[in-house]
């Protein structure tokens, strides 16, 4: 304790013609068990009421507060100042459209993603309110939930070499989402239909395998494993498509 912390924070308000992108410095005395949630709110309330940033649940559940903290994407709410040096640099997430200062528009990006991968259960069945639920093996339900744990914070996209180079890349979050639906027997899409969504350079074949996505994932979702499985599945699907019919059954 007793440290004085210096925050270098990216500033730019696109709605203010007088504003230009720059860094601002703020200093705060560090308090016990301080997190970036506490520090940023103190800066706003005590030093600069115009500072824009996003928090929502402040408990690591909702994914609202992702930002680049000393060069690394992460959730600000569960970043403790005691784990950081005296000087802390905060930047908004790249890839997503800037709202202002540390705030970015993740909603539009993710909604676009759901539409691209059609992130919902595809079924021709109708819900019958009188019928008992369809049964599911508990172990499978747990596997699906394991991939459903993604909180769409955007860290994996911000840390992705491909996503930064090409705007149309789906990113680990979308590929993981599709892996979730492939596991789910309620989704009746065929392998061919999945292939049409992700069997491209914008999808699984655009991944360079740098795996920063998994390194920065605050929920520690096994993205490396999921991307590997998906690549193998889609590669087989691709090969199957060019083979003559009599060979296809071998896969």
């Amino acid at each position, binding site marked *: 304790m007793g440290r004085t912390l210096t925050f270098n924070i990216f500033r730019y*308000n*696109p*709605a*203010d013609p007088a504003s230009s992108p720059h860094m601002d410095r703020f200093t705060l005395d560090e*308090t016990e*068990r301080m*997190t970036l*949630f*506490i520090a940023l709110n103190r800066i706003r309330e005590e030093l*600069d*009421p*115009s500072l*824009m940033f*996003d*928090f*929502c*649940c*402040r*408990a*690591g*559940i*909702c*994914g*609202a507060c992702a930002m680049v903290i000393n060069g690394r994407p992460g959730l600000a*709410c*569960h970043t*403790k100042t*005691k*784990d950081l040096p005296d000087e802390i640099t905060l930047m908004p997430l790249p890839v997503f459209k800037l*709202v*202002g200062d540390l705030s970015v528009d993740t*909603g*539009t990006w*993710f*909604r676009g993603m759901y*539409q691209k991968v*059609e*992130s*919902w*259960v595809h079924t021709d*069945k109708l*819900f019958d*309110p009188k*019928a*008992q*639920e*369809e*049964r*599911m*093996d*508990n172990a499978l*339900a*747990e596997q699906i*939930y394991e991939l*459903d*744990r993604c*909180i*769409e914070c955007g860290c994996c996209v911000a840390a992705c070499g491909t996503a930064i180079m090409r705007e149309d890349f789906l990113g680990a979050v979308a590929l993981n989402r599709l892996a979730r639906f492939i596991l*789910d027997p*309620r989704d009746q899409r065929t392998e061919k239909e999945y292939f049409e969504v992700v069997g491209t350079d914008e999808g699984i074949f655009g991944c360079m395998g740098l795996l920063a996505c998994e390194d920065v994932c605050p929920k520690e979702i096994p993205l490396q494993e999921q991307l590997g499985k998906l690549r193998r599945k889609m590669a087989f699907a691709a090969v199957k498509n060019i083979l003559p019919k009599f060979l296809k059954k071998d896969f």
Partner: protein
Amino acid sequence: MQIFQTDLLCIGAGLAGERVAIEAADNGFSVICLSLVPARRSHSSAAQGGMQAALGNSAMGEGDSPDVHFADTVKGSDWGADQECARIFVDTAPIAMRQMAFWGVPWNRVVPGEQTYYKGGKPFTAYEKPENEGLIHSRSFGGTAKWRTCYTSDGTGHAVLYTLDTRAAQMGVEVHDKAEAIALIHDGDNCMGAIVRCLKTGELKAYLSRATLIASGGYGRIYRESTNAVICDGGGHIIALNTGVVPIGNPEAIQFHPTGIVPTDILVTEGCRGDGGTLLDVNQYRFMPDYEPEKAELASRDVVSRRMTEHMRKGLGVKSPYGDHLWLDIRHLGEKHISTKLREVQEICESFLGVDPVHQLIPVRPTQHYSMGGVRTDKDGAAYGLKGLFSAGEASCWDMHGFNRLGGNSLAETVVAGMIVGGKVVEFLKGTDTTFSTAAIRDAMHRQEARIADLVSCANGGENPYTVRNAMFDSIMKGAGIFRNGKDLEKCVSELQEILGRARKVGLRSGGKGANPELTMALKIEGMVKLALCVAYGALQRTESRGAHTREDFPERNDRDWLTRTLATWAPGADLPTLNYEPATQVFEMPPGDRGYGGGKIIPMDAPKA
């Protein structure tokens, strides 16, 4: 002025808002959801426990039925609930859970055979029937006769919200996120939509709608220490209250949870105490057995919260830069137990406190958790006071929770009420035409533009909105917290009236351009203080103790005089809400009686007047 027009406008895109939206979209109506944050970040996502529904698939849920669920809910509410709504809720909940399964929620399922479960920290075995294999499983929650809480690991709210949000996307529901409704457009009889400030650009827009739904969650953030997300600041209640005609039902009914961590007020589960954790004071002395010799730390939520507060009032709390707190000690449970059975608690302690609960104490204090009150509606979800206005979820006072809601009932309410109210909104849209008055729209827009101009130019004064908010926090935490009494509430009400005067004089220091957060705060501070006054004034007038509302000077539940629901409206320019009362329920399926826990005396309905 940019104008959007839609059949249904949902203010809030959490579980309740999206469920209603889906029902309307399914029936061919256009829907726009407004949300302060991307829909999936709504506070619904933070609910970990589960949803109560009497499916009765699990061994410990055997013999469950909607009737048993109904009795638990009404007892839990301390007979404050509207019993018609509670009945609709319990009957519909099983269908809603199955519908969620159909849409893709990965509910945990029954695994057949001998299974080991925990109760009070001790393992026991139960036999799950083979014929129930793969059906939706359930876990235990407080105040219930059966295990009936459907769950998805420790992320039920998250899993259901993600499923509903993709269903909404599939149905073509538009979500306009980072958008805040700052006023309803109405003519005193009909609601016609809302004036909305875009939190990406700061622009004001008008949304015209034939039906409008308030599903903006609770108002926990009028308290400094709340487990709620920072967006749960009562925005939807404020715009309802500002109409002057829409009442807030039971604003004083506020639930507190004993163990929010300090600072940041994140909840750590009741399971810590269930498994044998203890509460210690500044001298590391275990004080709960002195107050509650029998149950100690395992008394009900309300009781433990009250005792902790009482102990801190004696000066035995631990001082910190974030206010006084107590310690939760789970060290004696050992590393193995903590890292397996209480993994989530360990993660919260490590991530947010830097505390290792295997070797260190966890700083905790009672923390605001849930608003039972809200926009008062009839059993169809239609708000009192304005035609075309509806409400559902925590934002509403539908009212199945009365003065205390059970764990697992609130999350279930979002999708069950969403389904019911959604159906009623569809009926309304099919059967009603709306005339949009351009004068009402223009007036509403001009009023908001003028408000913003005044804030930016400090026309009414230069009070700092954050300072005013802190004054409100200080006052309501002291006056209308866990323990309430006439003297402190009177002081709180008069302080809040003075603070309301200051809230009307706030001005910006920062220019207010674009998505300026100071303007966001300044626009709602007056409304937040009004809500705080509804809570404090409602609590002052209610001279009894019922559920979470605890009056030290009136310890009895008084069914003779107070089997009622408070209805708080705010007349234009007034300094206090107008309070009216209606019977708690029109239909008595279960007459008032003893809850069977919590103790306390009851003054019966037919007791002679004092």
